[in-house]
């Protein structure tokens, strides 16, 4: 392993490590645009120059591998002057769009100019003009004038998705990023090019003009869109509620995890958070009276449900949990089943999902916690529950999240529901089923509570609360916990972590895990092998689009 010195500090790195990465390990930032650890080396921006002893001129760091005994200087006057020169070159034709550009506040031209530029501009000639505000498909907006031609987006579409939609056309300062005329950027990972664009050339159409980034707060979480559990950061707008149409969640960004999703997230997950701030959110507990659902308070709601549970025999009660719920939620349900002897519990919808895996991250299973539900032991027979209901044997059916009148459920489920005396529905968003429920209990959305999901490979990952629950919504484990308390069972705790602790003592697969051990990268259930993120389609043999 080569040992080298950077700015007087020694470090040992794996063979093949480039100088940007080696410096990063020492906490030294080497400014750069075109370099990205998940993509091939381009060497185009020329910003990452460093001084290497024995080299006559500054050398680019991205394309230089650490060798034993190498001595690197990143703060010499010559390097600083070179960075200032490169900033000037980058800004020669760049439009002064900051006041109207979404990238402001997280723009690497702004950031590096303030750190490494700070020169007086002297370009007084007409700048090159290129197309502005060009939609590239449904998610991405291109401003070709702002583009610094780092080629990250082109390399992404070649090397990651393997679809090759983007190219750099023409030559010289008329070079332009674009699509083949007439084509669209419609692969399932299009939003990633916005993340990797260092400037405001590629911006998110969903986020366009919504809210300034400096008003956003960021929380680490996990995408609940499918069984992969890509790691994300949730960006919320708490400071300017009158912006972004009142949406609290402004956008989702992928968070690097070498074991799950590397740097990427699919568009289904990235743009799949609308439900959180949708008008269909259930805010208050509701009870059916005179054919209508009326708002009530939690004490009345919980008392009614606990009472109904007490009156009935275990065989008259069934629960349909959901793989949308967290391990903590599901474990609370398991506790309830054990405490009352309820054996009719399931979580899978009987019909196969109409969705498929894509060839990279997105799983056919659009639930984040199927594996958790299996391990916790809720994998009963949903079809059996429905036929028991149809036969009139189920007096109380407690449904979590599902829309039993939607896709994935048999057509005669409506009749089954007719014969259930008390239909309790708990979830975050109203659906066709809630219209038939006798009790509606609002659950907090995934951004409104803490918890863990277990992905399809057995990785337990934390998701975190970042905004207050809407209205009176509570976490699923909290609702079930309060029902248990109302039945005389000692309270488990007031935090998700308390429930997780109980889960680890009870379910062997989770033994020994703690929130701390799970950290930001997740931890495997016992028996599951450690994972790596799948190879992107563009990197596999025979991928067609590589430039």
């Amino acid at each position, binding site marked *: 392993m080569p040992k080298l010195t950077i700015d007087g500090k020694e470090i040992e790195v794996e063979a093949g490590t480039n100088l940007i990465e080696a410096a990063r390990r020492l906490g030294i930032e080497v400014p750069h645009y075109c370099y990205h650890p998940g993509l091939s*080396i*381009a*060497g*185009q*921006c*020329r*910003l990452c*120059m460093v001084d290497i002893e024995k080299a006559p*001129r*500054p050398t*680019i760091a991205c*394309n230089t591998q650490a060798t034993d005994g190498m001595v690197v200087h990143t703060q010499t006057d010559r390097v600083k*002057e*070179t960075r200032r*020169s*490169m900033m*000037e*070159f*980058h800004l*020669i*034709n760049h439009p002064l769009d900051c006041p109207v550009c979404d990238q402001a506040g997280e723009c690497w031209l702004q950031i590096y100019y303030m750190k490494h530029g700070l020169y007086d501009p*002297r*370009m007084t*000639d*007409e700048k*090159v003009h290129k197309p502005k505000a060009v939609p590239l498909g449904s998610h991405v907006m291109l401003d070709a004038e702002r583009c*610094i*031609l780092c080629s990250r987006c082109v390399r992404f579409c070649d090397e990651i998705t393997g679809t090759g939609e983007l190219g*750099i056309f*023409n*030559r*010289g*300062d*008329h*070079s332009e990023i674009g699509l083949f005329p007439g084509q669209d950027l419609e692969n399932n990972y299009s939003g990633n090019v916005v993340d990797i664009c260092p400037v405001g050339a590629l911006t998110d159409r969903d986020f366009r003009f919504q809210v300034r980034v400096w008003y956003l707060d960021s929380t680490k979480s996990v995408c609940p869109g499918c069984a992969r559990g890509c790691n994300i950061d949730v960006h919320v707008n708490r400071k300017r509620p009158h912006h972004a149409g009142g949406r609290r969640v402004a956008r989702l960004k992928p968070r690097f995890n070498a074991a799950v999703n590397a740097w990427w997230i699919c568009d289904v997950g990235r743009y799949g958070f609308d439900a959180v701030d949708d008008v269909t959110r259930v805010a208050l507990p509701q009870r059916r009276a005179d054919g209508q659902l009326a708002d009530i308070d939690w004490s009345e709601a919980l008392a009614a449900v606990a009472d109904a549970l007490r009156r009935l025999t275990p065989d008259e009660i069934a629960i349909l949990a959901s793989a949308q719920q967290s391990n903590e939620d599901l474990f609370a349900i398991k506790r309830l089943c054990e405490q009352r002897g309820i054996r009719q519990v399931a979580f899978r919808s009987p019909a196969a999902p109409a969705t498929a895996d894509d060839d990279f991250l997105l799983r056919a299973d659009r639930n984040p916690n199927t594996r958790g539900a299996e391990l916790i032991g809720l994998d009963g027979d949903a079809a059996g529950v429905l036929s028991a209901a149809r036969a009139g044997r189920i007096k109380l059916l407690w449904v979590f999240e599902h829309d039993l009148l939607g896709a994935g459920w048999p057509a005669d489920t409506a009749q089954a529901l007719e014969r259930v005396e008390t239909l309790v529905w708990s979830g975050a968003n109203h659906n066709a089923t809630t219209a038939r429920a006798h009790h509606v209990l609002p659950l907090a959305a995934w951004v409104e509570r803490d918890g863990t999901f277990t992905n399809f490979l057995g990785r337990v990952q934390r998701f975190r609360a970042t905004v207050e629950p809407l209205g009176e919504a509570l976490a699923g484990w909290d609702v079930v916990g309060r029902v248990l308390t109302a039945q005389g069972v000692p309270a488990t705790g007031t935090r998700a972590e308390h429930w997780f602790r109980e889960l680890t003592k009870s379910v062997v697969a989770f033994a020994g895990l703690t929130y701390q051990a799970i950290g930001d990268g997740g931890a495997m259930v016992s028996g599951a092998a450690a994972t790596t993120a799948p190879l992107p389609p563009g990197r596999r043999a025979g991928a067609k689009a590589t*430039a």
Partner: protein
Amino acid sequence: MAERVLMRNFERPNCHTLAVYREHGGYAAWDKARQIEPAALVEEVKHSNLRGLGGAGFPTGAKWSFIPKSHTGPVYLVVNADEGEPGTFKDRYLLEKDPHALIEGMLIAARAIRAALGFVYVRGEYVQPWRRFSAAVQEAYEAGLLGAGFDIVVHRGAGAYICGEETGLISSLEGKKGWPKVKPPFPAIKGAFAQPTIVNNVETLACVPPIISRGAAWFAGLGTKTQGGTRMYSVSGRVKKPAVYETSVSITLRQLIELAGGVSHSGRLKAVVPGGGSAPILTADEIDVVMDVDGLKAAGSMIGSAGVIVLDESASIPEALMVLARFYAHESCGQCTPCRESTGWIYKMVHRLVDGHGRKDDLDTIIDVAKRGAGTTICAFYDGAVGPYISYIQKFRSEFEALCRS
């Protein structure tokens, strides 16, 4: 100084045909080379002091020796016939008048570097030379010279000066835009189609058969201490007899201009571009320089492709710079930031100057920007632009200032 080595066949009728080439000793060098070990061929070319004649002036034998000895896969020989340096036209003559000399040079070089496949990249505009050369290749195949261990693929370019840069050429050969490649790795290690590749200029390879036939010492003796042989100087601009002239590389610029009939138009010399458009300009006081690689380097310029453009007193230096600045802006491939952005900007400034709307500040800006970009780019194209940007303004500043408003 009068010995014609490269141009020896040019006057003969049908000199481009195999029959005529053979008649006058053609392919005898190849017959001799086939008995010589590849490593010995490399050594012979090293001792000849042959230096690349396309622009960079790199010692050819040394370049050939960079192919890794341990490599067991294919090695490629690529011929740079993408002549495009302003003021240069010698390769066009070789392709049209002595294509078999190039083929023979390729055969020998291929043996030396153990290449079984050679590509000849001919600029797209050179249609007649391409047809001539392709016909010669066809003849060579029919005669069994090619296809018996060495194949040649003739590949036409499509109009881009940057494809004359060796890795830009390689990218174009690979069916992409002519974007030069980030180095390292260098072509001898990883070049065309990811294999070790040697890229040589047409004229450089045309020197190889005479070197093998008549010996490295003979070739070295024709030139100077650090560069062997003769070369073909393309002389144009304000001279009475613009043409290609073959002389020893020990000739001085003054002698070369005399050979070309002396200065035309006003008859008074103002300046000379000694090595193609990218070479820093020389004033009328600087023409006693020896026209070999090291002589021009010592004079603060370069021999490059040996394209000599003569400017007389009546020629406008600012206009000349504008013409070249326009050329660099048009030909910049756009891949890396300093070149892409500043070639366009500098052209705008020079154009504005020539139009009478320039400021003295602009002159300082051009020089400063050029200095900041020099040495920072992926390839030497920008350094070629910097040559004129800086030298024309520095050496003829008063002529520029006279055009400025302020």
